């Protein structure tokens, strides 16, 4: 009997070697390719997904240890690519090559889950491990701040 894992709300059998990193289970087994391979060592952030809502580097975590957990990938972040962060990313023309951006957005979404009103330093600190070679940081900061400001207004 295979262990199971929930991916974007759907139960999936872990029908691969349990040592397989989650990234490859997502990409090769489930063909969810929005999550990217960047460095394979958990240092670039391109493979970021949520495990029970918390940003996790999928390239260094074996799928077997995640049995029973709920995983959200970029494909499951919103219904139609309309998460407030995705909208803010578009509005601020963030992506250039786009390759790192699903990881950036997933990490930012996790940040806002934990801290809906991060200041500039908290954004820097939380996003530190997601590198963007095109250098879109200025706009990433702006997009996250914009969503945080909107959230703050909703709260107040």
């Amino acid at each position, binding site marked *: 009997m295979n262990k199971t894992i929930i991916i974007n709300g759907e139960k999936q059998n872990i029908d691969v070697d349990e040592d397989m990193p989650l990234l490859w289970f997502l*990409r090769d087994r489930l*063909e969810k*390719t*929005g*999550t*990217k*391979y*960047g*460095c*394979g*060592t958990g*240092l*670039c952030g*391109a493979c970021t997904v949520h495990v029970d809502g918390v940003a996790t580097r999928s390239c260094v975590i074996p799928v077997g240890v995640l049995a029973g957990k709920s995983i959200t*990938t*970029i*494909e499951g972040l919103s219904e*139609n*690519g309309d998460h407030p962060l*995705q909208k803010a*990313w*578009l509005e601020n*023309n*963030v*992506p*250039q*090559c*786009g*390759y*790192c*951006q*699903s990881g950036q*957005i997933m990490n930012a979404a996790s940040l806002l889950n934990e801290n809906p009103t991060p200041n500039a330093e908290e*954004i*820097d*600190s939380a*996003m*530190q*491990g*997601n*590198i*963007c*070679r*095109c*250098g*879109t*940081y*200025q*706009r*990433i*900061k702006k997009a996250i701040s914009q969503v945080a400001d909107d959230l703050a207004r909703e709260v107040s």
Partner: protein
Amino acid sequence: MRSLTKINEINPNSSIKPNNAKDEQNNLGLGGVGRSTKHESADKHVSGEAIYIDDRLEAVGQLHAAVGQSSVAHANIKSIDLSAVKAAEGVVSVITVEDVPGHTDIGAVFPGDPLLALGKVEFVGQAIFAVAATSHDLARRAVQLAKIEYDELPAVLTVKDALAQNNFVRPPFTMSRGESDQAITNAEHQLKGDIKIGGQEHFYLEGQISTAEPTEDGGMIVFTSSQHPSEVQKLVAEVLDIPFNKVVVDTRRMGGAFGGKETQAAQWACIASLLANITKQAVKFKLSRSDDMCMTGKRHPFENNYHVGFDSKGQIKGINITVNGNCGYSPDLSNAIVDRAMFHSDNAYFLDQSTVIGNRCKLNTVSHTAFRGFGGPQGMMTIEMVMDDIARHLGKDPLEVRKINLYGKGERNVTHYDQKVEHNKLNELITKLEVSSNYQARRLDIMEFNKQNSILKKGLALTPVKFGISFTVQHLNQAGALVHIYTDGTIHLNHGGTEMGQGLFTKVAQIVAEEFQVNVDTVGVSATRTDKVPNTSPTAASSGTDLNGKAAQAAAKTIKARLIKYVSDKYNVSEEEVVFCNNQVFIGKQSDSQLNEGDISAVQTFTFAEIVQQAYMDRISLSSTGYYKTPKIHFDRVTGKGRPFFYYATGASVSEVLIDTLTGEYKLLRVDILQDVGHSLNPAIDLGQIEGGFIQGMGWLTTEELVWNEQGRLLSNNAATYKIPAISDAPVDFRVELVPDDPNREHTIYNSKAVGEPPLMLAMSVWSALKDAIASVGDYKTSPVLDTPATPERVLWAVEAIKSQAENMSQKVEQANQ
């Protein structure tokens, strides 16, 4: 089909206005051009739906490639035993150079890049054999099982040794004007200096990757992350020994490239194709990050020196510069890269009597290659060092010295390679930035801060950039495009340029939308494919939009001219009375004022799609190619003189830094940038290129350190040991502006200017500001020597050097006083 709908009923919110002007300059902003249209893939980028090569659905039975690598820097191969590799789990095919049916050398310009090692190896990581296996993992495991014996040869691992042995990948080259030696000797002041400038790993987030699929006629279709599909096509065909027309190469988008996929994507595509050809299965070859870092070339490290003579104002009278590029083991693109370093040894300054020598040093490391700026940045660094050194020598603000050396307008306006610097606005641009950044007041504040603080010191610097736009190899300055219009009025666009995130596809789509005056979202962009537009140049040299934008415009103009003639004949109006506007075609007598007021009673109106349908029914061709070649450019390499560049892109930046003199750590406090992009085709994209280029340049000059050990093995081979800028490295306060409304005086596409590479060099102001902060430790009397990357360690060493110099000086003064 016929419609008499009034314009203002078509789309009352549209800001697109009718346009009668023939002059494209007046067209600006009326259609697709000049707007911050979002990147054509933006929605897919943020939803995860954009397909990169590794995201493509795999063919049934697809295999995965890996290569066995050299473990030594220079050796003859004594023996290769691949029996364990062949027997390994999942292995389907193992090949060496013996299995290559065609060419075994894939050198881009000159020979010297073996596809797989030919009896000897010349760097650690060189590919010796290749494997196709049933999974990526199994292929990578299998290649570890080879037993290879080497007869080691002496390895050249430093530029110094290469120079001592005249070990060059191509012969040295000199550009000169006048008698520089004499001018230096005759000048009031002389200085000498040298600098080591580090290389740079591209670290495109999407690594090198290709998938090759055999086709039914012995051919190959290759999906590759390459800036140069035509070269991949040529090399795959030559390696397989089949005609070019049997190979199709397809590149939809890259996850970053930055020059690293100009020539060096081809090897992996060729190996995948070879294995696909042998196994008759699709083969994917994806480099792991560490393999990518060890096996592909980087920005060339340089070791440059200068000898300058100048007057008491700091103006250069004569200068000798030698740039020594570390090319790695093969020519690759190094000849042109060192040339560009030589061309840019002046940056923005008139060098008067000058000699610039460029050496192409051969080392037993991976072959260094194109990287945003293509040698230009390494050339500019020397002269920016000269500016700082002269300023410290004369006790002046470096900005003053920079200004007095700028190219002039009527005089002092010819480069050391004999190109006149036309339409030169460097002085105005710098002055404007000096004011907008509040340079002078901040300079005073910083002097005060540095007096008050003994440990933390601030530095400030303004540096300009003048970057030549065009490939310096003339024949590459050409482009083709293909435009179709379908009978629903939608447009298909294809051209020879590749999309790597720079927004090329978006800009070219805007240009086509502008020609037809239709919404940009009716223009469908498509993957770069060698069977659509042939014989294309690499997307490089910042020229993607200049070349492909013009080619696409030409294609669109051809179709538009056919449509205008057709409508004019059919409706018996003059060609001037056929006007494309707001997704419509207006036919009949009209004036601007009539159109603006919506008074169009005399005008027949059809939608663009309706006119297209009519034209189709009347058998008018709705497809065209377009072609463009850059005018005016020429260069004679024998004399070292000519006009290699169509025009120059200029900009300047001001950086302010804070350093800790006890640790060498620093923070980039504020950056102000002013960049001339001519008439911007897309301000959002252009600003993004400037912001990102600056960050990338800053990484090159500050944190990104490549380290090879004494055996020639790259130690900085992963994300843990090689540090590219993270979000917290970006400037705290980052102000980027475009020079407003300043059309390119050359007839580029909508009078825009290239923006891909020039901003990278704006980061030189960070390096110069660090030196300014360090110089404050010695009361600005000594110019710090600061090789790059200026890591905190190097900043600390430079601080210590200045401190000990200052101590020695004061001891000498004391002794003299005693």
